[in-house]
């Protein structure tokens, strides 16, 4: 009687440890070859187009359309100057709510502007289109954004008065500040950098 009870116990414990070992094995397999869960759904082309507004520094993502300095100046002074100042310049003591955008190229002032601190012209288009004007983001047409980009680059002495910017030539504009930028050169470890 006592003997058979013991045998049953031993059998159970062997079974248990076998099950545990099996489970561990399958977990390791999961980590090596992650499974596809099948959650979520395929995105449609229409959905991607509606949200895919980014413009890369090589010009990928720039839309059709064009703009010039003259049109840009008009749009700037009706929609942007209230926060960024007349002509994009900091004048007087009162700090501009949106900061200055224009300064002498690579001037060693404290103001960081498009002319002395922006390494890529494409960033201007991307940022204005997604986030400006502050009170009505996303309200500008692509042509208006091209025109504003042309006006601001011209005001910073980076492009000429007659420039017409579009998807082909915006990424080719060389920004004065580009040569100043370096990728992170800290490497961890003891060095203070």
């Amino acid at each position, binding site marked *: 009687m006592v003997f058979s009870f013991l045998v049953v116990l031993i059998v159970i414990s062997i079974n248990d440890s076998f099950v545990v070992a099996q489970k561990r094995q399958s977990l390791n397999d999961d980590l090596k070859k992650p499974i596809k869960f099948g*959650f979520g759904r395929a995105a449609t082309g229409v959905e991607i187009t509606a949200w*895919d507004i980014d413009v890369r520094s090589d010009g990928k993502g720039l839309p059709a359309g064009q703009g010039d300095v003259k049109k840009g100046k008009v749009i700037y002074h009706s929609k942007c100057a209230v926060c960024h100042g007349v002509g994009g310049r900091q004048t007087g003591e009162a700090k501009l709510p949106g900061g200055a955008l224009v300064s002498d190229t690579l001037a060693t002032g404290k103001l960081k502007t498009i002319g002395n601190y922006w390494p890529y012209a494409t960033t201007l288009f991307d940022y204005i289109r997604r*986030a400006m004007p502050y009170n009505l*983001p996303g309200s500008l047409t692509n042509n208006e954004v091209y025109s504003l980009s042309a006006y601001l680059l011209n005001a910073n002495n980076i492009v000429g008065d007659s420039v017409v910017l579009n998807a082909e030539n915006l990424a080719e504009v060389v920004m004065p500040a580009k040569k100043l930028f370096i990728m992170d050169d*800290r490497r*961890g470890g003891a060095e203070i*950098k």
Partner: protein
Amino acid sequence: MKEKAKIIEKTPGSISRRTLLGGILAAAVLPVDELFALEKDTINIPNVINEDPTKAPGPGPSPLGKRSTFEKPVRKPSDISSRTPLQDLHSTITPADLHFERHHAGIPAIDPDKHQLLIHGLVEQPMMFTLADLKRFPSITRTCFIECAGNFRTGKEEMTPQDILGLTSQSEWTGVLLSTIFNEVGVQAEAKWFLAEGADAAVMTRTIPLAKAWDDAMIVYAQNGEAIRPEQGYPIRLLLPGFEGNMNIKWLRRIELSEEPYMTREETSKYTYPVKDKIRMFSFEMDARSIITYPSYPQQINKGYVEIRGLAWSGRGKVIKVEVSTDSGKTWEIAKLQEPVLSKAHTYFRYLWNWDGSSTEILSRVTDETGYLQPTLKQLVEVRGPNIGGYHMNPVTAWQIRKDGSVLFKPENYTK
């Protein structure tokens, strides 16, 4: 003379005569648990202060808890951010409602049932995920800090830890590993970076190296056990342990995989800083840092034992050592670290000091597991130049202890 109770505030939580009477009547006929369920629809915290709280029953349970009326920790808001009151907190977790904020066009109101995350670009299958989809994946929890890259202020003696570096907070975050989601969509071999974009009015975007996704990046939907707060990215945010706060995109709605970075405004004209005659960009990891939070301004200490307490952290791994100096930096002693010490997490430290009442300065400095020792401001200026700017500043900071026991920050000038 025998004032039994002092009513601090007359709110639904205070005990009215009717409630007391009702309670007494109910007590005669109801079991005890029913008695305490009487005010379930209100927030019940005792705010009638009895001289002897053992002589009158307090209010019962309530649907939502609240801080004691004696405790009033607050964030310190500016136009664009608000700071965590580090001097009012204990140990490492930041209550969710005190987590620092930094947003670039306000907090969007998002219906979680309508919110979707699009993943496209260099993937095998562009996909759309609802919040419910994301919650079905294996759920991972991690405790780590998030710190703004522009987290250093100085300039006057009357500054609290909140004023100096209150743009760091720590939470227990829960969500899905980004690697799990990237495995689901399938990543093409040419992909090296991914763009993350928010659904706020700034449509905030940053480019992140793909390696971070395979390492420890997460998409999180919970903070300290509940849904993340609207100001922290409700319903989902990106979590990049140890990386500068701005990259942890809130209100995440889109991820695009790419062979190269996008050079967005926030990774070029912002969150970059002069290093001698160059400008350093893509500076992701937050270097190791520490601060003494007690004693600090505006606290007051007494002669005798003072336990110096504070926080230390590193975006590159674990804190391995915190040293404290009580003699203005001449000698350093090892502080005790509160276990468990977690990687890329605020770590609580303490050091028992017997203050003799003389004026001095107290400081802390941290060493992380990569061997990095927190630098002084002088060292940072030496390696980066005088035009140092305000990003990625992690200098050792000192508190001045006056003979009267008052504590003041020691500001150091460094700008040109």
